[in-house]
């Protein structure tokens, strides 16, 4: 390449750099401005969505408190980065009424995120709400709104065994309409995998959390 070619190359390079840096600066500013404006609104939306879901799984709730499980295995109220979080819920008289527990697991197409309510006096799951799922519309998506399926979770027995370290009866999925025991779930025909996934998610989450909740029960009482 000759000398004049070199100099025109240089000017081209500098124009390229200028274009990239200039455009990147503009783009950076746009993203920062939009983020700054929307971040509090998004956080607010997420909070509201969570509160609505908690109210749906535990209707008598008046207030809630977050408890994080730290690496030492005890519950703390300071925000931790882990997703090991549960919500203790209280009624108007500040009595502990139950726990809203987020859980997730693999469904038919993608992760299913749900929230379920646990009532320690009944030792039962008393409500379940799907937070996010991408199950097949019209088939698997019925885990969200099929009235018969949702009814399974209004009183699902999850009592612990005598040593208090695991569920006394594993949650079992049975064919539609064949439920006879309190720890069984009627599946949805046409959505077997999705309904089984919901059962498994609750089974796994309950066996993880319930022994810990029972062990530390006193710590959740209001003000403690």
């Amino acid at each position, binding site marked *: 390449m000759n000398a004049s070619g070199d100099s025109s190359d240089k000017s081209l390079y500098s124009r390229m750099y200028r*274009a990239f840096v200039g455009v990147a600066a503009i783009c950076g500013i746009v993203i920062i401005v939009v983020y700054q404006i929307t971040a509090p609104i998004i956080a607010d939306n997420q909070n509201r969505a969570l509160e609505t879901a908690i109210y749906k799984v535990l209707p008598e709730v008046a207030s809630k408190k977050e408890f994080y499980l730290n690496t030492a295995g005890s519950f703390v109220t300071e925000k931790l980065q882990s997703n090991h979080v549960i919500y203790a819920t209280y009624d108007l008289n500040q009595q502990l009424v139950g726990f809203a527990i987020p859980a997730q697991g693999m469904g038919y197409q993608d992760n299913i995120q749900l929230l379920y309510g646990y009532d320690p006096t009944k030792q039962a799951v008393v409500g379940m709400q799907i937070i996010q799922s991408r199950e097949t519309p019209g088939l698997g998506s019925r885990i969200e709104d099929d009235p018969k399926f949702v009814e399974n979770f209004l009183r699902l027995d999850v009592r612990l065994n005598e040593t208090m370290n695991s569920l006394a009866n594993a949650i079992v999925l049975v064919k539609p309409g064949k439920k006879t025991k309190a720890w069984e779930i009627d599946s949805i025909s046409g959505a077997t995998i999705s309904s089984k996934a919901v059962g498994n998610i609750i089974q796994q989450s309950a066996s993880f959390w319930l022994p810990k909740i029972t062990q530390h029960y006193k710590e959740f009482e209001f003000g403690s």
Partner: protein
Amino acid sequence: MAAKPIKIPVVSETEQETNTFLNGLWQQNPVFVQVLGMCPTLAVTNSAINALVMGLATMSVLLMSNILVSSLRYFIPRQVRIATYILIIATFVTAIDYVIQAVSLEIHNALGAFISLIVVNCLILGRAEAFASRNTVNKSIQDALGMGLGFTLALLLLGIIRELLGQGSLFGIAIFPENYENWIIMLLPGGGFFTLGLLLLVFNWLQQRDTENSQ
């Protein structure tokens, strides 16, 4: 969705501004004529509201990127134009993603990854390259509005048909009587292909008739 190279007719400078707008809306409709952006067209049109939000989101990104690309058209050397356009488009997609989350988390969840995938919608890069980089800001705005509205209306049409047949409702409001048996295939990807195929047939027939009449 990476498609095979499609010839996008460039509108000559002399054409009227209204033509630029109508061109995208009808003669060069991105979905029915150029067959661009098929990924969101098929994936998120299972309900009218999803289709509408997706169309509007794409239109906003197209509008903003067209404005920026056309105002910087003398500043960006041709050798790095595509990389720069992608950077610009990705920025506005990120911004729209935040805005949709702020407006409704429910819709954001329903649209899922397809919002981020607006980045690779050939329609937007196609308009930046074929139109905005060669025309004034004013004309690029007309083009973005025309193309964006054409895209939105096409998506909305698919969404309305699929939701009506698949769920018997429109924007979540029940339209058909309760004993209507939902046509679930319409909500699944197959239904998207059927509906799009039939609409393309109708559109091509209309255009063919127009050409025959004008001859």
